[in-house]
Structures are given as structure tokens and as C-alpha cells.
């Protein structure tokens, strides 16, 4: 279980970093950021995993629950991820309006 999840996390991280380094289309960069965020969220949620634990809604009987703190952190991170994605997309729209392209190498004064 843990090996599968950590492999997924590492794979997604690798894909996202590679994409961030090689892609030049701004929308694709935003997508790479989202993939990276998903990898991080998966790692955070897995950090609170307890073998055989139930969802942290306290019932009557004593039982093992998965840790609720990473869930709350992940919830916060999801909202912030959505906000930052919206901001990035708004800036992409703005750049397209003013510079006429969303490809980095065609946006003038950005060459380097």
C-alpha cells in the first residue's frame, strides 16, 4: 500500500518537474503545477494513514482512526491550490491579451 502510494507520489513529482523544466506553453506550466500539487497532497494524506483506521468521524465504539490533521492540512492546501491556479490562469489570460501569445519564447522581453 505504502509502496504503491509513494511510487505514485514520486512518479507524479518527476513528471511535473520535467514538464515545468521543458514546456514553454504557459497553460501547460499551470497544468504541471497542478500535477505537482496533487503529488504533494497525496503524500500529505498518506502521512496520516493508519493501518485499518477508519475515517475520522468519531462513532460510539472505540476504534482506530486515521489522523485528522493531514486531512485538514490537505483541505487547506486544496483551497489554496485552486486559488493559485485561478490566479495563474488570470495572469495567462492577461499575458495573452497584452503580448499576443502564451508561449514563453514568443512573449517579447522574456527571452533568456
Amino acid at each position: 500500500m505504502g509502496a504503491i502510494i509513494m511510487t505514485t507520489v514520486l512518479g507524479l513529482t518527476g513528471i511535473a518537474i520535467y514538464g515545468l523544466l521543458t514546456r514553454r506553453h504557459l497553460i501547460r506550466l499551470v497544468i504541471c503545477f497542478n500535477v505537482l500539487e496533487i503529488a504533494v497532497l497525496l503524500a500529505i494524506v498518506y502521512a496520516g494513514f493508519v493501518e485499518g483506521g477508519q475515517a475520522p468521524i468519531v462513532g460510539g465504539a472505540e476504534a482506530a482512526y486515521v489522523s485528522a490533521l493531514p486531512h485538514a492540512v490537505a483541505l487547506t492546501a486544496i483551497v489554496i491550490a485552486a486559488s493559485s491556479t485561478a490566479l495563474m490562469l488570470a495572469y495567462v489570460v492577461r499575458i495573452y491579451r497584452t503580448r499576443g501569445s502564451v508561449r514563453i519564447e514568443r512573449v517579447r522581453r522574456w527571452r533568456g
Partner: protein
Amino acid sequence: MRTGWALLFSVALVGCGIVTLIAGVDLDTHGAIFDYAHHSVQHTGAVNVVSAVLFDYRGLDTLGEATGVLATGLVVAVLAPKARTSMLSVRLSLVVLYGVALVLPFVSVLGFAVILFGHVSPGGGFTGGVVLASTAVFFAVVYTVGGQQSYVLPMDTQKRIENAAIAAFLLVGFGGLVTGGAFLANAATGIPLGEPGSLLSAGLIPLLNLVAGMKVGVGLAIVVVCLFSE
């Protein structure tokens, strides 16, 4: 060349991660984490431990999160201020129009239910807020005719609700500071925690859930509708 270096870098990064895992670095820290599940009912009265963490133990972080959404709404509204849409000029069929009209009330009720029962069942202010925002998105997509944007609520009302929600959050926080000795204090203010599992329990958590739900619902609706209008 550049692609090669990027590939090398990504593979090296993933390799470091794999080596860390194989070397047996223990990432499980359950023992070190405070056991919220077995204390939250006693401390906060909330059966949903995630809600208890979000709005009681870590209330200040949640306020920061809500502020982040507020800032995003502001910046997106500044960057994309157009009232006419160019994206949504597609004419939809009658089935879609009536189907959405049929579904919308149920989705709104679901959103409010998820918010109001956030402390006794899965869900909460943020989840329910996103459901509520989805009604606004439905509405904007389906009932935008000829590029003229349509809203569930007028834009000014939405912004007023958003500001009122964040002000209410702060008010609850400072109320806790005055009566309970800590910002966003819950049980320490002397508010009755109620029977755990009932609708009126968990002190101030349902109120904060409602406020956060309004905040997130309206904030995300503003963001999405503003992005549509470009």
C-alpha cells in the same frame, strides 16, 4: 540538450526519493502527532474530527486560508473585469436548459446540508462552499445568452456577502479573544458544547462552518465567473 538535462534532473530527483524510501527513512509519524480523534469530542464537541481541527485547533490557519481566497477573488476581479462574455456564446438545447433548472435546487440544498452538518458528518464549510459555487457555475454556463452574463446573485451582492463573511469570521475570532482568552477560542468562551452528534453542538464550529461556506462559495463563484467573462 535542454530536454536532456531536464530529464536527467527529474530522474535524479525521483531517484533521491526512491533511495530515501528504500533506505528505510520512516515517514510514518503517527505516534508523534497529537491524537485528535480521541480528544476532539471532549475538547470541542465536534464528531467530525477534521472540522474540529480546521475550526478549533487550527482556526487561525483556516482564517489565513479564507484570506487567501479573498485575495484571489480580488486580484482575479481586477485582472478580468469584463461584464460581457466571449467564451459562452454557444446556444444550448432546451433539454440542457430545463435539466439544469431541475437539478439546481437540489444541488443548492446539498451544498447547504453539507455546510450545516459539517461538524457531525463528512463535509464542512469548504466542501459545501464548493458545491454552492458549482451552482453559480452551472447558472453562468447555461443561462448566459448572447454574451450577456447572468448571475444567481448580482455581483455587488456577492462581494458584500464575501466581505461580511470574512468580517464575521474575524468577529468570532476576536469574540473568543475577549471572552475566552484566545483568538478563535471555542469551548473556553463558555459556550455550551451540546450533545455530540446533534445539529446544535460543537459550540462555535457550526457558525464558522457557515461563514466559511458562504465565503468559499461566493469567492469561487466570483473567480470562475470572472474567468468566464474573458
